[in-house]
């Protein structure tokens, strides 16, 4: 899923910055080398808890949490909490307001009827936003995703997440008893045919419970959450205009992550990871994955897929996904579709879908 965030940030969040001297390659040179930033190198080991924390030598990274929730009556909800870091220039971190790090965060709550969201921006350097690895703590304004005070130093084992926006807020606890899952080759996740890549791991086994407050109404919920961590300096190719990313929780405890990067001039680049219920995983072959839109939805003058057929041949997976709320449009400063889905077919379960570049 590295692709989604990388392009997302570059194309959207800091498109203006790209035109500056620090990004002299320009927008057309999206595929150019990120001079001065650290490079993603195959074989570099991912180390915990260090890599829960930030990597200022790289241009961009994110902490991404999505959750599929249910209330006592069985109604479904989705939750999103995402934090991005983007460095505007390479080199040693500067102090105070002059720091290169710019942070952006999105939060959302979705049910069948409503999709509420909020966004916020902050500059690093003065304490408005940041991430520490140990104890793990990610924050921006009054939004937090961090180790619980009663369980510091336990990695991601016991966490809490909270955020608030117009008409909604949430605060939930998370717990997990398995280590994170590395994507690609031990966390080295390739994004294009010419070898662009990112470091990428997930924690897809969170159990989550807590309270959503939607328009003043408190709702107790519980469910499954999926956290992504990814960092890189190398953008995508100029012709990769958008992506579709899926994370699926099967009812039998297995999970799968697949994404495709849609290319204007070539066939889509696909990749994924099959995750066993015990936490072990295998990367999926590009040709093993097929993604086909089945229906269209129209939102704000855009047309994008509604239902998808998703197949993983080697695993006998052939499912049709349906959004909980077709209008899960994140009309943030840089907009995209992100929301909870359910699926049926060869397998059943719930998950999250992100679609950008439509």
């Amino acid at each position, binding site marked *: 899923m590295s692709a989604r965030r990388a392009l997302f940030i570059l194309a959207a969040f*800091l498109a*203006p*910055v*790209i*035109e*500056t*001297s*620090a*990004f002299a390659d320009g927008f057309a040179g999206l595929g150019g080398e990120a001079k001065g930033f650290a490079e993603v190198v195959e074989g570099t080991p991912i180390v915990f808890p260090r890599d829960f924390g930030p990597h200022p030598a790289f241009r961009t990274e994110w902490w991404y949490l999505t959750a599929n929730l249910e209330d006592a009556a069985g109604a479904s909800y989705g939750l999103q909490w995402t934090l991005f870091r983007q460095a*505007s*220039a390479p080199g040693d971190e*500067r102090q*105070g*307001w*002059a720091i*290169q790090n*710019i942070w952006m965060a999105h939060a959302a709550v979705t049910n069948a009827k409503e999709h509420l969201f*909020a966004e*916020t*921006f*902050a*500059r690093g350097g*003065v*304490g*408005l936003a940041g991430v520490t690895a140990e104890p793990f703590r990610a*924050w921006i*304004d*009054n939004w937090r995703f961090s180790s619980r005070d009663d369980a510091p130093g336990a990695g991601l084992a016991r966490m809490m997440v909270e955020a*608030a*926006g*117009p*008409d*909604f*807020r949430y605060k939930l606890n998370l717990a997990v008893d398995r280590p994170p899952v590395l994507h690609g080759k031990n966390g080295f996740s390739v994004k294009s045919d010419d070898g662009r890549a990112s470091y990428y791991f997930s924690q897809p086994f969170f159990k989550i419970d807590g309270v959503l*407050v939607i328009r003043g109404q408190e709702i107790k919920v519980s469910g499954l959450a999926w956290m992504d961590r990814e960092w890189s300096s190398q953008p995508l190719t100029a012709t990769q205009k958008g992506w579709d990313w899926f994370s699926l929780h099967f009812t039998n405890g297995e999970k799968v992550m697949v994404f495709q990067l849609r290319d204007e001039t070539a066939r889509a680049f696909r990749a994924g990871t099959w995750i066993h219920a015990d936490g072990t995983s295998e990367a999926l072959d590009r040709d093993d994955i097929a993604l086909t839109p089945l229906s269209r939805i129209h939102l704000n003058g855009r047309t994008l897929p509604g239902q998808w057929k998703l197949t993983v041949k080697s695993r006998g997976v052939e499912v049709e996904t349906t959004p909980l709320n077709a209008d899960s449009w994140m009309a943030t400063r840089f907009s995209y579709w992100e929301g909870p889905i359910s699926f049926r077919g060869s397998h059943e379960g719930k998950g999250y879908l992100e679609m950008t570049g439509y």
Partner: protein
Amino acid sequence: MRPFFWTLVALLSHWRRHPANFGALLVGLAVATALWSGVQALNQHARASYDRAASLFGTAGVQSLVAARGGLISQDLFVKLRLAGWKVSPALEGTIRIRGAPFQLIGIEPLSLPRGTEFAGVTGENALGDFLEPPGRTIIAPETLRELAAPEGAAIVIDGGKTLPPIKALSGAPPGILVVDIGVAQAVLDRTGHVSRLIVKESSGDGVPPLAGVAGDVLRVLPPREEASDIRRLTDSFHLNLTAFGLLAFLVGLFIVHAAFGLAFEQRLAMVRTLRSVGVSARALVAAMFGELALLALIAGGAGMGLGYGLAAALLPDMAASLDGLYGVRVAGQLTLDPAWWISGLGIAVIGALAAAAGELFKAFHLPVLKAAQPFAWRRAEQIFLRRRSILGCFGLAAALIAFLYGNGLYAAFGGIAGLLLGAALLLPLLLAGALRLGEKTSSAPLAQWFWADSQQQLPGLSLALMALLLALSTNVGVGAMVEGFRKTFTQWLDERLIAEVYFEAAGDSEARQIESWLDQRPEIIAILPVSRATIQLEHWPVDVVGMKPHETYRQHFPMLSQVADAWDDFERGDGVFVSEQLARRLDLALGSMLEIPTAGDRWRAKIVGVFPDYGNPKGQLRVDLASLMRHWPDTPRRAYSLRVAPKAASNLIDAMQTEFGQQIARISDQAALKRLSMTIFERTFAVTAALNILMLVVSAIALFANLLTLSNVRLAQLAPVWAVGVARGRLAQLEFLRVLLLTAATSLLALPLGLALAWCLVAVVNVQAFGWRLPFHLFPAQLAQIIALALLTAAVAVIWPVIRLVRTTPADLLKVFANER
């Protein structure tokens, strides 16, 4: 429709045959519209600028939080509020100087700015990276770029030695303001870790704790419109002044229109009779005249609007300087006007023209069909008008008297002035006629008697122009006396107020201590007088509290308007404070009464022991003992000093201090430079007034010229018989010239007392209402003589062309008078 059309054509043909009359009408109306609309354009533009400045932070739905007790807000509190969920965005405002000129510097944080605030656009969608990434950018309005005389991209060094990020001009940016990143502003203003304002959208998300729960009582909400209304309140009187000027000029212009149309009406009486005789109804005739007038008004009004725009553009720098000097308010250097201005300007031209011609239209409607078309019948009618006008004039004077005796406020003051001026103007013909009759009685030679009698006969035709001249002259006298008086008072006041030889401000508090101990060792120093300043609000009015030492220097020289006995001893004990005249007037504070002053911690009750003049300061000021100030406002920075130095040592001391401390001194100046600066500001302040004054005089000259020119066309009937009995054309021309000069001189003499009355109204009533200070009334004989000379020159210029025409009139033309009926 056809009778209407042909009637209109017939009426319009008159103007073709009388181009001078036509010119007078057009010029009068165009000039009237130009002055009125020009002034309105300036007002509208200035107000738009205020709104733009206020909307920097005050867009709908956006509020500002400021330190409840004034001063700065700690950046930590800002971070604390953000982390508590308050969607606040920080800003840091301060003043920097570039080559001595002050500019407002604002540091913003574009990432957290609420959408829709002015600055969200200031950084520009595509320039965010440039703005944030060191060295960053200094965003300024294009007109400010010109003001700085720097190329785009230049990195300006401000006074004190710090360098601003490269300049980027952005149209729509607020004028006179330099916008930089918050981090840059903190460094440049030497306020690391502080902000001056927090901008917040009303809704800050769900479940956010109340402000007091996070920040205690450190912050207060500044309502979005408070700032705009502050500026508006401060500048209201200034704009009222301008409007009054504009209105006066418009009236002068309408006098021209009235005269020109009246003359045309009389000249067209024969045509009107003919038209009515061939069956054109009175209604159709008046409708055609209406149509004619509306058409002319639109043409002249359109031209006037163009002129008005040019006038406003030309006066804009002066007005901007005035507003800057008076209120520290910045106005954009580029005129921007909305369509309403054009429509209202044209509307006022048409309405003005109709009002000026209403009498004639009424007469046309009621004219008996067969009434003989007597030439100059209107002169006879003028006798009746003269009486009516005189009665009206007396009413005007009475109204003025009532306004001054019982009126209150600026509008009453202007109403009184209007009554006075119009009353006097309406009485002018009567007074002049009296003077001419007196002249006739005292002369015995036939030519002299003819001269006086003929002047009397000519008076009605000239009276409107002379009235216009009277208004222009008395305004010149009045405003001139006011400005001169102000200059004299201001200069004296500056001499007393700026008594120390050297003034400086240290870059920070610790630097100030360092410099102070260095100064202690210098032999040429007679006294070190620290000054400190806190800002408070008294009854919602911004007031500076200035702390100073009760040193001999001040005891002997600090100018006072009134004080109690032993005022300085009370002051020194901290029991007594001095209040500025503006503050005393505004809050109605009496000498000897108690004043409750909100301080950083508590309320301080002090006795008012003195009132001092504080000309030119839009804010109120309290002078208190320095030790008391530091006790009540312990956090106040103490960086400013006045130094008493042996006079000749001042410049050497400044050099020595600059060498020794360099950038540790933020500002340093000697007495002479400060006085120069103050006087420059003073002069700039009255630049626009002076310009309007001259324009009024020009308009009245045009009025006089137009009148004389139209009259000269019909004067032959009177002059031909005199010529026929042997008076040469040259001699006649001399007499014509003399007549106009004589009438002008008489008008000027009348303008003197009227102007002085006006000056008294301005200094004693308008200034007090508008600015809060009263000036002593001074007389300036040289200035008065100058104005009379100017009036005579104006008249001479206006009459020269008609007189030349008279000299060149051929005998054949003069003889024709006897051949024709006329």
